[in-house]
């Protein structure tokens, strides 16, 4: 069996750093450093997990890979002709519009023509199990319903590199299973995936390799169970001790 790292590289990040001025202060301590020199390679058809605590720069990394943000320094190279898209819940839903209109808008923003988007709508309505609520304004939806609509709309994206940000941890138990299964089908096929999650079990089940990010740097990278074990150990070590 060939190693993942023998496969062709889809995307490479080379000493990527991102910082921005956070406050009004014009001095250097007003500058917020999110990523501080992150380097890694993403190989064809692999599923790469990214773990780390809140606010360490995971979402920023996905945004850089999706071309939404540009690194302050360093380089991101994507194989020519390939596309990457961020699969995230609720593509900026407008509360006053119906689920149907929002789904149409989201599908078109992801590159479909109006006709193609219309063809998706039935599929979205069925998979999301929203029934008649599909025609109601999204502002009347419960958070679970919004999540179902968001996940289903996002699932339709067809891109070479799928960047997934915390999408499987929503909805009720029944929908969560269904979502995970749908996601797994995508991952098992010819799909390169980067997966950000706090759910260790999911990372373990889905990811070939995992990167652990801490303070804007890669703390550990490699075989998923090893990285997860290290991560868990560090979390326990850093737990505040009772007085």
């Amino acid at each position: 069996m060939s190693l993942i790292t023998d496969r062709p590289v889809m995307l490479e990040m080379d000493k990527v750093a991102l910082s921005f001025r956070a406050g009004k202060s014009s001095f250097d301590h007003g500058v917020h450093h999110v990523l501080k020199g992150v380097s890694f390679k993403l190989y064809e058809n692999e599923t790469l997990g990214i773990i780390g605590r809140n606010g360490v720069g995971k979402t920023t990394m996905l945004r850089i890979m999706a071309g939404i943000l540009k690194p302050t320094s360093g380089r991101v190279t994507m194989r020519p002709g390939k596309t990457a898209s961020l699969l995230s819940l609720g593509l900026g839903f407008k509360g006053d519009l119906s689920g149907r209109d929002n789904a149409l808008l989201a599908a078109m923003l992801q590159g479909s023509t109006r006709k193609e988007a219309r063809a998706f709508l039935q599929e979205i309505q069925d998979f999301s199990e929203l029934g008649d609520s599909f025609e109601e304004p999204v502002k009347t939806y419960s958070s679970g319903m919004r999540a179902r609509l968001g996940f289903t709309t996002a699932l339709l994206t067809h891109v070479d590199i799928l960047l997934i940000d915390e999408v499987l941890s929503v909805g009720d138990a029944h929908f969560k299973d269904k979502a995970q299964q749908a996601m797994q089908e995508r991952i098992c096929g010819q799909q390169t995936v980067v997966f950000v999650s706090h759910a260790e079990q999911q990372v373990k089940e889905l990811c070939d390799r995992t990167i652990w990010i801490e303070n804007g740097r890669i703390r550990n990278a490699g075989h998923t169970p090893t990285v997860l074990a290290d991560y868990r150990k560090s979390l326990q070590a850093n737990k505040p001790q009772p007085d």
Partner: protein
Amino acid sequence: MRITQYFRLVDIQARMILKADASKLTLGYLWWFLEPLMWVAVFYIVFNLILDAGARGSAEFLTFLACGKFAFIWFSKTVSQASNSIVAAQNLIGKINVPKSLFPMAVAHESLFRQCAVYPLLLVIVMLFGYPASPMWLWLLPVLVVYYLMIVACALVGSYLVCLVRDFSQFIQLGMTFLLFTSGIFWDVRALGSPEKTELILTLNPLAFILDAHRQVLMYQIPPDLAILGAIAVGAIVIIAAMELLMRYTSQYLALKVLT
């Protein structure tokens, strides 16, 4: 992004803004007509009944106000709304790399739909107050095309500035009030008593020129000054092209500005 997909997105976004707006208010689409009519009523009460400014007779003054205010609302509402449109799309911008000009363009496009309904009402008002329709009214078409270009140009500039520094949003509100008073909406730029001053305002303030052109065409059947109209069109096109390029070039910088 391909240009066809870009315009498809502008169009669908504009339609969705229309739908969302109409569903928010009980009177829905009726507000398109009510708002300018109510403004005209307010101006009429203040300037004609209280201040006696409309010495020329109420019908003429009302038509004069209607032409000015209907046209001005198109500009002020679109530019104010478009200026905040990129910042307001924060959720979307954090998730997908789209051309940022899409948002102000969608607002401008939506306002175009709106005006397609509002302008016929203006024409009816003008006719009701004793200014019959005439073939000369066709001169309004080039005026409206240039006006639209001017609105798009201002919308793009406004949205870019607000994206860089949010405080510009306050300046733009103030700027709209300034333009309301300086563009000859409730006073006649041609009745200033000094032809040089009139000339100066019409040349320097494109908005005053466009509003005046509405009245000249609809009320007095006089075609607009094509040299000035042409100059405004060229200026607007240059600004639109420059802003499109700038927004494309700084797309990710704008995203960072919006998200942080």
